[in-house]
């Protein structure tokens, strides 16, 4: 089983006629995803990567039964694109777009939530379930393979790096969720853990965190009280100075809060094994699985 997406996920790509939209429509299809439609206002009636393009999400839902969307539209229009998706009945939107003002994202998040929809992202690689197979977003097709490890991450390439290492020791993933690097994200570590807790086909969760905010500390608190599966974590940014945004809008130590040390301490306090460097992660995962098997 997988979380959030499966083989029946029918994707509409919002902003399909843009460069990124087109490239990743192709990649998603190659992965095995059902990309059933694209939307670009004014380009309705055309075709991209053998996918019909409509003027509105509603048409994609009405004609192609789309039930998830992948948003590539530029930041100034992203809020509107998400509202359009929610209003059309889409219940899962992966927002790849970066540089969305958090004031917009606050509205997007609470609007989607009020209407029963979920956002992954923004500024995220999306979600991939190699066994389905299905992916929504821009996660590379090659690093994953089906397995029983859940991955939740605030980063993109760092996650591919770590997952690749884990793959090299022979382990695969159930679902990988890229939460995104922004200060306000639609789905947090805690939300992701809730999903994996309920998934019978996930044995262990790898968390890839980074400096900024308290999402990892919140996750530690959740793990301590509610999570029953082993968790292995890595936190990027121990070398980062305060008050500097390290690439991600959310990766910033402000007023002394959000340091890698604080996160590591919180997670270890909740029984999570925290790797200090990416290359330590495969061995850690293997060790923890071995311990689990022994119990």
């Amino acid at each position, binding site marked *: 089983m997988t979380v959030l997406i499966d083989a029946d996920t029918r994707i509409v790509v919002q902003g399909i006629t843009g460069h990124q939209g087109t490239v990743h429509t192709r990649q998603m299809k190659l992965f095995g995803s059902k990309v059933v439609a694209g939307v670009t206002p004014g380009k309705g009636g055309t075709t991209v990567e053998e996918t019909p393009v409509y003027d509105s999400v509603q048409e994609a839902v009405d004609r192609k039964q789309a039930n998830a969307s992948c948003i590539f539209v530029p930041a100034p229009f992203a809020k509107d694109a998400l509202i359009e998706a929610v209003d059309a009945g889409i219940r899962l939107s992966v927002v790849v777009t970066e540089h969305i003002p958090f004031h917009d994202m606050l509205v997007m998040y*609470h609007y989607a939530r009020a209407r029963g929809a979920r956002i992954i992202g923004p500024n995220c690689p999306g979600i991939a379930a190699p066994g389905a197979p299905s992916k929504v977003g821009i996660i590379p097709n090659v690093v994953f393979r089906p397995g029983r490890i859940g991955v939740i991450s605030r980063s993109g390439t760092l996650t591919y790096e770590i997952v690749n290492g884990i793959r090299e020791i022979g382990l695969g993933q159930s679902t990988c969720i890229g939460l995104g690097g922004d200060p306000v994200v639609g789905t947090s570590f805690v939300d992701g853990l809730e999903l994996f807790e309920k998934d019978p086909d996930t044995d262990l969760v790898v968390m*890839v965190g980074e400096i900024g905010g308290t999402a990892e500390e919140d996750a530690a608190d959740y793990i301590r009280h509610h999570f029953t599966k082993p968790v292995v974590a890595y936190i990027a940014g121990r070398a980062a100075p305060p008050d*500097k*945004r390290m690439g991600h809008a959310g990766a910033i130590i402000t007023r002394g809060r959000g340091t890698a040390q604080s996160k590591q301490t919180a997670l270890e306090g909740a029984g999570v094994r925290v790797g200090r460097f990416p290359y330590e992660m495969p061995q850690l995962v293997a060790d923890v699985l071995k311990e689990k098997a022994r119990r």
Partner: protein
Amino acid sequence: MVKLAEWRGKEIFRKYGIALPEGHVARSAEEATSLVSQGKVPLPCVIKAQVLAGGRGKGGAVRFASNAEEVRAAAAAILGLEFKGEKVKEILLEGKVAIDRELYVSLTLDRTLRLPILLTSAKGGVEIESVPDEQILRQPIHPFAGLAQYEKRRAAAFLGLTGGPAKSLGPLLDSLWAAFNGEDAELVEINPLAVVGDRVIALDAKVVIEDDATFRHPEYAEVRDDRTPLEEVAREKEIAFVQLDGNIGVIANGAGLTMATLDVLMQFGGRPGVFLDLGGTDDPAKVAEAFLLMAKAKPTAVFLNIFGGVTRCDTVAKGLVNAMEKLPAQDRFPLVARIRGNNENEGVEILRAAGITSIPDLKASAEATVRAAAARAAAAQGRTA
């Protein structure tokens, strides 16, 4: 993060109707004196350095004056300061007010709740980080409800305000809320918020505008305040580039991987000097541009760490080789490369042709970088010695 100087923050406050002391900005002692002599700033007055760092009061960057001569002297003294590394170019002159109490109020983002949060404290005039948690009231504000009356009443009660000051707090908070949203702020802070007679007024103003919202606020495009000149160039080119206090440049793709690369370097005794996140790109020209920018930071050595996904290894290799060819000999730097992932073989081949070996192991490549930097530094020392 567009951090605004106090006077700019106060311009915004004025626009939203927040009560302020009468004040004006000056850029020279003459200008300051004439503001007072023309009656635009009442006497006695306070003269404050317009710098972004805190602790101005103790640092001599705030002075008082009760006549024109004192104004000239204070202005000249402050304008000559270099305050915590920042040259003072502007001063703000304001009429002195009789402060009964100093309070604190701010609006910022609570990332966990995904809600704006209103912070109030009766301990104003000191850094909020130094105030114990139980002396700060934290009220999340839902964007769909806006700032509610009961939240304003609770803030006034927590601050121990009654009568006129309590009454004036409500509209001030409404204005602050409007400014926070209308200006796409990350932070609007009044510290201290002063009780003066029967009302509260903002003695200081700290406003931080969100970088990503500047498309809605072109008026802040000119405000650079907090970046190094190279960071500013990088920002215009949309490259994530941060200058640090070490000597090794790091180029990687993705913020997380770039941070992790810094972490590994540090582990082996390296001192990162530049964080450069290539992001996702499939354009060799963009990669070359990033390398040339890195060269301007004069790194002792550079560590290139790519995990190819959206960004393909051969694209990076091509961009790198192009950039290296353009660099004059004296600007070149030792380079250690590690490229993995999408189109890895093609990338490795391109690098090899240009005489660069990719070391696939992260640990080994980081160690090689630290060694290369040390060797270069030793050689340079040898030359100067």
